C-alpha cells in the first residue's frame, strides 16, 4: 500500500478510536432514553455516509454516460456497494435503538422509511449490475443510478407528507432538538471518522474494480494480437 494511503488509514483508525471513546465515555447519558441513545453516534453518521456514497454514485454514473470511462463506472460500482453497507447499518441500528425506547422494532417514521426505500433502490441497482450481460452492464447501471438518485428527494417528500398526515413516533427525532454541546462535539467526531472510513472503503473497492478491469483489458489485448480465445 502506498505510504500516503497507509498514513490515511492509520489516521482514520485513530479518529475512529477517539470518536468511539467520545461517544461511549465522554458524551453524557441522555435523560429520557439512557445509554441506548449512544447508538445515535453510529446511526446518523452512517446515514450521512450512505447519502454521500449515493451522491458519488450519481456523479460517477453521469460521468460514465458522458465520457464512457471505465473508471467512472468502477467508482459508481464501488460507491453503490459501500453505500448499501452503510445503509444496512442505519436500518439495523434504527430498530436496535427503537425497541428499548418505544417498545417496537419499526415505526415507519420518515427518516427510517426513506432509508429503507433507498436501500431497496440501490440493492436493485446492484442486482442489475450482476444480471446484465457484457458491456451493456455499465450503461444500464448508470441509467438506473440516475433514476434512483432523482427519485430520492421525491421519496423523502412523499414519506414526510405521509407522516404529517398519519403521525407516528420518530426514532431519530429527539436528536436534532437542542443537542447538548458535548454531545454535538462527540457527534461531529463520529461524523468525521465515519466519513473517513467510508472514503477508505470506497477507494479500496474502486481500486479492486480498476484492477479487474485491467485484467480484462490485458486479456483483450492478448486476444487482439494472437487471435487466442
Amino acid at each position: 500500500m502506498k505510504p500516503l494511503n497507509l498514513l490515511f488509514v492509520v489516521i482514520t483508525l485513530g479518529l475512529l478510536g477517539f470518536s468511539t471513546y467520545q461517544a461511549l465515555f465522554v458524551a453524557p447519558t441522555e435523560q429520557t432514553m439512557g445509554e441506548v441513545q449512544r447508538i445515535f453516534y453510529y446511526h446518523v453518521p452512517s446515514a450521512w455516509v450512505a447519502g454521500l456514497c449515493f451522491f458519488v454514485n450519481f456523479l460517477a454514473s453521469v460521468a460514465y454516460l458522458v465520457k464512457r470511462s471505465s473508471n467512472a463506472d468502477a467508482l459508481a460500482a464501488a460507491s453503490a456497494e459501500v453505500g448499501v453497507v452503510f445503509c444496512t447499518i442505519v436500518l439495523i441500528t434504527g430498530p436496535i435503538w427503537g425497541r428499548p425506547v418505544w417498545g417496537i422494532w419499526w415505526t415507519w417514521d420518515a427518516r427510517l422509511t426513506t432509508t429503507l426505500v433507498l436501500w431497496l433502490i440501490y440493492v436493485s441497482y446492484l442486482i442489475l449490475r450482476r444480471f446484465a450481460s457484457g458491456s451493456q452492464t455499465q450503461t444500464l447501471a448508470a441509467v438506473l443510478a440516475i433514476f434512483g438518485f432523482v427519485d430520492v428527494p421525491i421519496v423523502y417528500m412523499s414519506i414526510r407528507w405521509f407522516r404529517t398526515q398519519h403521525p407516528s413516533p420518530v426514532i431519530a427525532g429527539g436528536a436534532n432538538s437542542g443537542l447538548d454541546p458535548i454531545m454535538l462535539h462527540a457527534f461531529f467526531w463520529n461524523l468525521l471518522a465515519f466519513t473517513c472510513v467510508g472514503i477508505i472503503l470506497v477507494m479500496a473497492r474502486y481500486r479492486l474494480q480498476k484492477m479487474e478491469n485491467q485484467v480484462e483489458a490485458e486479456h483483450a489485448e492478448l486476444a487482439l494480437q494472437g487471435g487466442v480465445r
Partner: protein
Amino acid sequence: MPQTGSTETHPKAGASQPSTQPAIVLHNLVKFFGRFAALRDVSDSFAPGRLYVIVGDNGAGKSTLLRVVAGLMEPSQGSVTLLGAATVREVAHRVGYMGHAPLLYDELSGMENLRYFGGLYGLHDDSTCRNAMQMVGLDPELSRRVGQYSQGMRQRLSLARAVLHDPELMLLDEPFSNVDVHSAREMAAVLGRVRDHGKTIFVVTHQAPLMEAVADEFVHMSAGQIARREPMARITSGSSGAAENPR
C-alpha cells in the same frame, strides 16, 4: 480523415465529386465479446458503386462487421465513416440493412410491414411498397400474415424492406439463406442491376458461387480481420481500379 492500410489507385478528388468519396471507411475497428475479439483492428476503405461479397468461416467476424457498420453495435475501439458521415444516424435514410433474422412482424401482412417501415423513412405511398414486393417476386395483394410465409418468402420480403427507401448503401447479411437456388440466382441478378444503378452493396454470404457472376470484389475475412480482397474482373462501365490490399 486518416486512412490506414489501403492504397487507392485513383486519387481522392476534391469534395466537389461525391462519387470518389469512399462509401465506407473502417478505422482500427475492434470488437470484444467478453474476452473474444470478434474484430481485430480492422482498417480499410471501400469505394462506392460496387458489389462487395464478404466471405469467410463461421466466427470470422462477418456479421459483426456488418452490424458495426450499420450502427447497431458500438465498436470496442475504432470508428466507421459511412458515406462521409461520422455517425450512422446522420445518413440513416441512405442506408439499408438486412439481418440474419427476418426483421419483420409476423402478425402483419407483407404490405403492412412495408408500409410501416416505409413510414419510418418518410415514405407514404403504396406504389413504392408494391414495386419493392414485385421486385423480389412477391405478390403485393397477398394478405397472408408474414408468420405464415415460407422461409424463402420471408427472406425476400426482408430484402424488400431493406431496399424500400432506395438507399445508396445496402448491407445485407445472408440474403440467400433458406431461399431456393432459382430464386437466389434471381435475387443475385437483381442486386447486380441495383449496383449498376450506382448503389453500393455489401453482401455477407456462405454461398459465394451464387455471387460470382455479379460481384465486383470478394472480401475474405478470417479470425476478425480482412485477410485479402479479391477484385473480380468484370465487364463494367466506368469504375476505376479497386483497392488492392493483400495482407
